[in-house]
């Protein structure tokens, strides 16, 4: 339960998954296509992951694979994993996939995640050292949240190293105070 307060964990679980209801549920408006105030047995609805997970535990629904892991993405990853725009598919591609993996029947999800990650991680680290921050901005817009964190960590460590090499200032304004606003007077 150490992730209870973790913001990223909460945001990952908000991603929508398609579910198939096995049991009818009264008095809820989660199915926008239903005429009555309930979710009918056998209806297909998109619900957030946290809800789908709990309902599957109680055998009220079954989870299907969401669109971001579909055949089109798989083919693109096979072709050139490093430049696939995963952020537009799902900003938490890997975390979401990891959470879904034990719950869906598709056994190839894990392999998809690990191959994509291996290739993209290597590309991201190379970019930190070879490309200037400005030119890499288009590339950065393809990265998922997890990859962006890794990229930024690598960037921070390389700038810290350069600073140490040139004996930069040790005492700095506390980063928690944010960027300094330029004084007008």
């Amino acid at each position: 339960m150490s992730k209870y307060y973790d913001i990223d964990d909460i945001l990952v679980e908000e991603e929508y998954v398609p579910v198939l209801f096995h049991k009818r549920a009264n008095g809820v408006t989660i199915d926008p296509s239903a005429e009555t105030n309930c979710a009918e047995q056998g209806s297909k609805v998109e619900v957030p992951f946290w809800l789908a997970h709990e309902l599957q535990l109680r055998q009220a629904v079954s989870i299907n694979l969401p669109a971001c892991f579909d055949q089109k993405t798989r083919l693109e990853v096979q072709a050139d994993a490093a430049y696939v725009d995963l952020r537009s598919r799902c900003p938490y591609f890997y975390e979401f996939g990891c959470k879904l993996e034990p719950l869906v029947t598709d056994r190839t999800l894990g392999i998809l995640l690990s191959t994509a990650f291996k290739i993209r991680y290597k590309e991201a680290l190379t970019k930190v050292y070879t490309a200037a921050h400005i030119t890499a901005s288009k590339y950065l817009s393809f990265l998922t949240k997890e990859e962006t964190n890794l990229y930024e960590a690598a960037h921070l460590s390389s700038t810290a190293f350069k600073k140490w090499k040139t004996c930069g200032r040790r005492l700095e304004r506390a980063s928690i105070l944010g960027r300094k606003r330029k004084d007008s007077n």
Partner: protein
Amino acid sequence: MYGRKGYQLLKDFASGEKGQLKPFNSKLFDETIEECDQNHHLMQSLMRKMQQEDLDVQNSRNADHYGALIHHLSLMRNKRCLMAYVYNRAEIVRDLAWRVGLELLDLPSEIQEKLTSLEKEYFKNHSVTLKSYMGKVGIELNVDMVPPKDPYIKVRILDDIDEGIVLSDKTTNFARHSMHFLKRTDAEPYIARGQMEELTD
């Protein structure tokens, strides 16, 4: 409905820079609590309906049960979002005490505006605890961990600081843009607040 407001609250929190505070979003906070009340109300009415049909509320698994379950889960989800919001803000407040200064009035005013009165209270109590601990242990724990090569450093003043500051070895007036040769430990808190900068040449 169904955890949406809690999610929006956390998105608002996450949209700020990492490790930075935004002003406390009391509007969304209250809306989330209202959504929780709605879920609770609907859940109660479904359970009452089950009781009226003489069903065992704990064990029977009919459509009303699943409806009440969904409302219950949404409520728990909103609760989690609210708790995470307050918890993460408290973490940043504690960080402020360590990195910037233990006095509330030393914090820049833009930061002070973003804190609620409860968070300011939390900051004060945390500072008091830290100070008493450091006093008992006898070491100042919130200074730079690396022993410096030179106990004195050259600094330039960036902001207006009050006159007649008493340092460990002298009393000086800090005029803006003036340069001074200070003891490292004295200059540290001012540099952390952005009122001075170290000169290396």
